């Protein structure tokens, strides 16, 4: 019997169709895996299910527990037993395990918390999930793996019927992951139905009874895992898509090596014992577009940011050479002076001063270019902003528009304008097309091609493999902080990249 049936779910964000007629059927008592690339729409689908996007903000029908369900919010779906555990844990680190488990749901009489009851019930729940810790231990003092178990205990305290785990093992070590997966199987034996979202196909094979593959906001296939399933079957469904006319034509003849990074090592800024980048070496030629593929959390952004003025990490070692000469990239302004630009993946939080105008943002990284002495030539500044507005086709009534009011694609163009105005030789683009619509993507690709044609070296980090295949001359594959492979455009395919990633 189906516990959950999501029928023809569609969800549109301004300019982007995130979900398009998605169907998801989950049988009572099974573990159902939802797989797909980053940005395929898995998380959006789960947000629809858990009421983050309430009824009316999406199209389609949800049938849950035999009746149509129209959740008005996350507390509404929780009352009906649907509990979602997000990738980023929602625990309060300063509170104890017991306090976290009963947060917002305290065992209280007339507003007075009954601590004896709280701790007793916490102990029962911890026993269920196999966590040996005192209920009064602070969440801060236990590892991520155990925190994950606390989250599950919290879910169990709410009489969960359908447990949703979003990338539960992303931050876990091997043996912690195995423990968590075994717990899922145990809960299944106790009658809890689960949905697991995961990239790790070996884990999916280990726990899942059935698999739904989502790609580009659409259901691609529903596979039965009990009959045995190979990872190749899943990979093919995950990545296969029509690639014609999504990328502008280009023909490139890369020149000499422009930037060369050798033996790059980076440690985590807070956890001093964790090595984030492991002996990475790569190069990029003039007029070449080089891609870095990998999953979220594989260390691509950390690699880029640590090269760009040591903006990430500590104890950084290794060398960066430009045109064969070692360059000093120990601070952002030195990296900029050396000719390196980094376009961040998070344009709102790291790229733009949102409350300021297009003009303000365009010149921010090169104020010297629009000033005499240290006095700004504001007319010159306006001219510069206008020039880039035209060159990059930023759609706005004027360059005095605040960037917060622009669409994602136009915001991205403003960030690009800011970096182009520093006249870089090497551009590192981190997820340059994330969250922008197909038309704007095409324009960004065109800009990248133009840059390469001008002889600039472009490093493109992307989670969208078709984008890398459509744009790059070479692709490095990154996994768990190391560059695990290098493919020429001619030899590269999504299957090959995926298999380099999953086979570690």
């Amino acid at each position: 019997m189906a516990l959950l049936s999501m029928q023809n779910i569609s969800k549109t964000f301004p300019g982007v169709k995130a979900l398009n007629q998605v169907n998801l059927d989950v049988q009572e008592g099974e573990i159902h895996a939802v797989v797909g690339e980053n940005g395929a729409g898995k998380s959006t689908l789960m947000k629809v299910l858990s009421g983050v996007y309430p009824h009316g903000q999406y199209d389609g029908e949800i049938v849950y527990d035999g009746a149509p369900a129209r959740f008005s919010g996350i507390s509404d779906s929780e009352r009906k037993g649907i509990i979602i555990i997000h990738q980023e844990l929602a625990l309060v680190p300063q509170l104890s395990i017991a306090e976290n488990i009963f947060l917002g749901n305290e065992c209280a009489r007339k507003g007075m918390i009954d601590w004896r009851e709280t701790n007793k019930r916490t102990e029962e729940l911890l026993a269920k999930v196999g966590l040996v810790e005192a209920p009064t231990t602070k969440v801060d003092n236990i590892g991520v793996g155990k925190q994950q178990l606390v989250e599950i205990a919290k879910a169990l305290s709410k009489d969960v019927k359908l447990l949703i785990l979003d990338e539960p093992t992303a931050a876990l070590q091997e043996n912690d992951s195995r423990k968590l997966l075994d717990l899922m199987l145990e809960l299944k034996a106790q009658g809890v139905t689960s949905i697991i979202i995961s990239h790790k196909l070996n884990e999916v094979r280990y726990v899942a009874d059935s698999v739904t593959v989502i790609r580009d906001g659409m259901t691609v296939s529903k596979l039965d895992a009990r009959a045995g399933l190979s990872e190749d079957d899943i990979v093919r469904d995950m990545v296969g898509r029509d690639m014609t006319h999504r990328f502008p034509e280009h023909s490139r003849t890369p020149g000499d090596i422009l930037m060369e990074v050798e033996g790059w090592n980076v440690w985590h800024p807070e956890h001093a014992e964790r090595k984030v980048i492991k002996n990475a070496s790569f190069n990029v030629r003039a007029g070449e577009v080089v891609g870095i593929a990998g999953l979220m959390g594989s260390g691509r952004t950390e690699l880029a940011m640590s090269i760009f003025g040591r903006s990430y990490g500590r104890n950084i070692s290794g060398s960066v050479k430009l045109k064969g000469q070692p360059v000093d990239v120990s601070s952002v302004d030195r990296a900029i002076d050396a000719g390196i630009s980094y376009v961040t993946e998070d344009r709102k939080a790291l790229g733009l001063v949102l409350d300021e105008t297009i003009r303000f943002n365009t010149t921010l990284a090169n104020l010297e270019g629009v000033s005499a002495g240290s006095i700004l030539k504001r007319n010159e500044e306006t001219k510069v902003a206008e020039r880039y507005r035209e060159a990059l086709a930023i759609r706005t009534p004027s360059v005095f528009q605040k960037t917060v009011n622009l669409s994602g694609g136009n915001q991205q163009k403003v960030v690009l304008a800011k970096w182009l105005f520093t006249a870089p030789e090497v551009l590192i683009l981190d997820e340059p097309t994330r969250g922008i619509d197909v038309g704007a993507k095409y324009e960004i690709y065109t800009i990248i091609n133009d840059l390469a044609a001008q002889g600039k070296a472009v490093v493109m980090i992307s989670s969208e493999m078709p984008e890398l295949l459509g744009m790059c001359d070479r692709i490095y594959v990154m996994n768990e902080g190391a560059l695990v492979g290098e493919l020429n455009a001619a030899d590269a395919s999504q299957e090959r990249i995926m298999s380099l990633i999953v086979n570690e």
Partner: protein
Amino acid sequence: MELAESDSNVAPVVKTKSIGEYLSSHLRQYGLLFALIAVMAFFQIVTDGTLLRAVNVTNLLLQNSYIVIMALGMLIVIVSGNIDLSVGSVMGFIGALAAVMIVNHDMPVLVTIISCLVIGGVIGAAQGYWVAYWKIPSFIVTLAGMLVFRGLSLWLLEGQSVGPFPKEFQVLATGFVPDIFPAGLGAALAEIFDARKVNVLALGTGLAAAALVVWIGLRQRAQNKAYGIEDEPRSFFVARNVIIAAALIFVMFKLSLFRGLPNVLITMGVLTVIYAFITETTTVGRRIYALGGNQKAAKLSGIKTERLTFLAFTNMGVLAAAAGLVFAARLNTATPKAGFALELDVIAAVFIGGASMSGGVGTIIGAVVGAFLMGVLNNGMSIMGIGIDYQQMIKGLVLLAAVIFDVYNKNKQG
């Protein structure tokens, strides 16, 4: 390139908004000006004209000079995304230091002034160091500074008031610029205005300043037009400039009827112009706004955010010291209570002037007008004989109202 070209040939369209639309999107700037005018008109009426009498206008400027001087530095600190709670104490401490140096140790006035400004800078730098390089919240660092320097003033003065100062120090705050024009001219003007005397320098400065404001405004407007920048409707431009020019001339005229241009007004005016220039048209100013608007983005754009924060606090220290000297000179004595709770008036002035607690927003002119708005409220209520109890309550509510107005405006636009 097809997609890119389809829209790129659209010329920059400068929409001329209707007057109503324009007013509602720029309500904040005009609101502050209107509020100042309204408050002054109100007190002028209820105090039977006492508020704008020559002697009171002079007083009003002198009374608020040290608030205005500190508001300049505070605006920068707040725009950079921080706060400085120690300025009242630092101001008191520097006043005490000056008194001990001059009165107790007979040190030369000029040496004292210079060393006090330097020490103010060092104090600011010491606090800025922890905020900028150790990332300790400025609220905590400067709260500690507030207590430390309050204690230091007490210690330095041994709990006593120290004074009086020599004349040459007093003129810092109470001196007036002598009239350089021939006395006959003043006498002739006095005849025309039916006044006892007229200080021609003060009146002339007022006229020159008014002309300068209008000229700069016109130049800016012409440039905006040339670059297709959306500008305020002509009627607003004219009205605003007439009001500002008239106010400048009026205030200076009042001053000219009393003792002329106070030294402090010159200091205040020059500092205001310098800081307005720094914040609006220099790279340092631009970077401070970027730092406050989005620190991470600023850092990733190659801006040395730590150094800027450090400098903002150092600058605040120097200005607090300057205010301390003016304050001590005005009272002609240094007391352990000098500057008590004054940081709150300074911070209130900056927020009333439109700065945002989260940083990145605010103007020098706004902060100065905010300071005078508070000053007029204080002065007007005192003339009316309203008790200090009601004064505090009313000032508190004005601050709250100003910020609510800000938030309301922002939500409406958002």
